[in-house]
């Protein structure tokens, strides 16, 4: 089975990237690993979540605002240094702009009416802001371990492509064609038609704001792209580990395959896979299935007739879950990764710090 445990992987790295499709419990896994690491490692541990849901904060029992890392009190440990931060894309973009642009340019960008919403609507805006934020966290050199809870997306590696996409977006020759060097439109029928069209559809003033925004960004983008590209390479470097979170179902695991393929294109692999929601062991015991079946079919049931009739609907449920457990084992056996941890399907999914502490302990000790 496991050649390297999740614990050993975490102990050897300074960055942990947690990826997976939506609804599999990435945020929960990230937070619990953060707690476990903070209890056991020397130095500060940061969990950065890019998921806009406030679940991480509420589960950890803290209030996170803006992009400030907030200290998380760890029950029963006065030495554990855990911090949590939640990406707020707006202020993160502001910080990047302020850092890269001259005061004058930064002020004009921040005042541009198009700018305010662009970070939210630009497809890779959040990923990009996260990289900018992460750049500061890494450069500050204050964290022993940073755990990045990546946003759910079709392809979790969009995150790594964000610098290229931003460079492409702002550096496009199309844009040069549109705005000319100095803000006047270059000649040609197509450009003129375009300007007419944009005026008609969007209004001249709005169009002028768009053009101004792109022109101002020209001086800022190269620096931003350079910094975030550096972070993206850190994330793909030797100090970083990838943990995929998935559910024990064929259709969810198949999305993992797509992720593994795009990792392979970067010559990367998953260091570990966490399978969340595996039926507890009791559903995997042949004797349990056997007795449940005898109760449901009322043939040589070990119970009295009245007890058998009473428990039969419950036993039918047990029989069904035993079948599911078998399917899950098949899925687990087919997983390509060497390090596989499982989290049992719990009656109460961990939504508070005690649940997360339990889960952290479970994963740290081998899952």
């Amino acid at each position, binding site marked *: 089975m496991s050649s390297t445990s999740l614990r050993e992987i975490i102990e050897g790295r300074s960055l942990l990237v947690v990826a997976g*499709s*939506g*609804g*599999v419990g990435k945020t929960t896994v990230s937070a619990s690993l953060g707690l476990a690491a903070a209890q056991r490692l020397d130095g500060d541990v940061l969990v950065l979540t890019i998921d*806009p*849901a406030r679940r991480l904060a509420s589960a950890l029992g803290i209030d996170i605002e803006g992009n400030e890392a907030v200290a998380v009190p760890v029950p029963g440990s006065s030495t554990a240094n855990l911090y949590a931060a939640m990406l707020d894309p707006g202020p993160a973009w502001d910080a990047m702009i302020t850092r890269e642009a001259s005061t004058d340019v930064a002020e004009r960008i921040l005042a541009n*009416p*198009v700018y*305010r*919403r*662009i970070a*939210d*609507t*630009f*497809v890779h805006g959040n990923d990009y802001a996260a990289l900018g934020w992460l750049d500061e966290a890494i450069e500050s050199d204050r964290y022993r371990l940073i755990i990045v809870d990546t946003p*759910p997306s*079709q392809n979790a590696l969009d995150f790594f492509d964000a610098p290229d996409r931003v460079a492409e*977006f702002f550096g*496009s020759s*199309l844009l040069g064609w549109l705005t000319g060097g100095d803000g006047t439109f270059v000649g040609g029928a*197509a450009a003129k*038609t*375009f300007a007419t*069209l*944009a*005026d*008609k*559809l*969007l*209004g001249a*003033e*709005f*169009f002028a704001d*768009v053009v101004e925004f*792109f022109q101002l960004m020209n001086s800022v983008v190269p620096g931003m792209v350079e910094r975030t590209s550096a972070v993206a390479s850190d994330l793909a470097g030797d100090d970083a580990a990838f943990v995929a979170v998935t559910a024990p179902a064929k*259709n969810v695991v198949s999305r993992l395959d797509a992720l593994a393929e795009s990792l392979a294109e970067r010559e990367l692999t998953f260091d570990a896979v966490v399978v969340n929601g595996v039926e*507890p062991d*009791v*559903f995997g*015991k042949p*004797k*349990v299935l056997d*007795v*449940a079946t005898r*109760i449901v079919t009322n043939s040589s049931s*070990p*119970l009295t007739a009245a*007890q058998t009739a*009473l*428990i039969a*609907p*419950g*036993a039918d*449920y*047990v029989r069904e*879950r035993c079948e599911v457990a078998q399917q899950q084992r098949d899925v687990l056996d087919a997983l390509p990764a060497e390090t596989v941890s499982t989290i049992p399907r719990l*009656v*109460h*999914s961990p*939504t508070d710090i005690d649940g997360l502490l339990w889960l952290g302990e479970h994963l740290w000790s081998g899952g």
Partner: protein
Amino acid sequence: MTILDRRLLIVGGKGGTGKSSVAAALAELSAYRGKSTLLVSADGSPGAAGMFGVVPEHEATEVMRNLSVLQIGSSEALTEFIGLQLGPLGAIGKPVANAFSFVAEAAPGVSELLLVGKYAHEARSGSWDLVVVDAASSGHLLGELAAAQNVGEIAPVGRLARETGWMIALLGDPEITGVVNVTLAEEVPVSETIEFVDRLHDETPANLAAVVVNRTRPQLYARTRRSELDELLAHPPARMSIGSSGVFEAVQIGLDRADVASSIDARLRDALDEDVPVLHVPEFGVVESVPASVREAIADELSL
């Protein structure tokens, strides 16, 4: 009024809740009820429109009596909009459309507006009794539904802004447009649904038509039988085999799960306005077409 009496139903929900299957089931049910129905996939994948044995295209394709499907993306919507607004542009059309789509991506809300504009246009065209949309997941959907207002604010003049008036009116009329949120009787999905409903109300003109709790299980036990069973589980027979005690343990897990699901379901019900129906749909897996049992379950829930 049942949810199918509207002209436009926008079905959204967290990934993994089965929103496409529910959208397909609602559309199929509507078609079976004799309504001319269009099913639109608008979340960038064939989704619901792809569940009827054809690959959906940008033009509506009839897949069965009373039911047509199409898939739209923002770039097709944009090209179509430009064509409608300016007529054929000839040879320079393509670079101009490319340049415009570039600015549209940069201009906040424009591509969302065009996407919503496309399905809203189908709903008001009079060609269909009902348009069902398999929409983007919750966060994106809020952005799309708010786009008409946002574009109106940021670019108050121009033809695009002029288009926003009718869209806001259509989306905001609860008799015409309804949003259906698909969720599961689990902690996180229900919390997200409650948050979605609040934000839908605060940030968009659209109204909630219903919440669908997907993959619900029938109650295993009526109340009286349940107390008898609790008694048995609390005082199991002495000297049970490993298999029998395992069954007792596993049955207890099943009951605990059912109890948690009911309490989460109750929390959802409490958080919603009383007049918002909560529909419970049983598990029906990943499907090619919608099983009759599910259509019937939805029909029952809708009291049709």
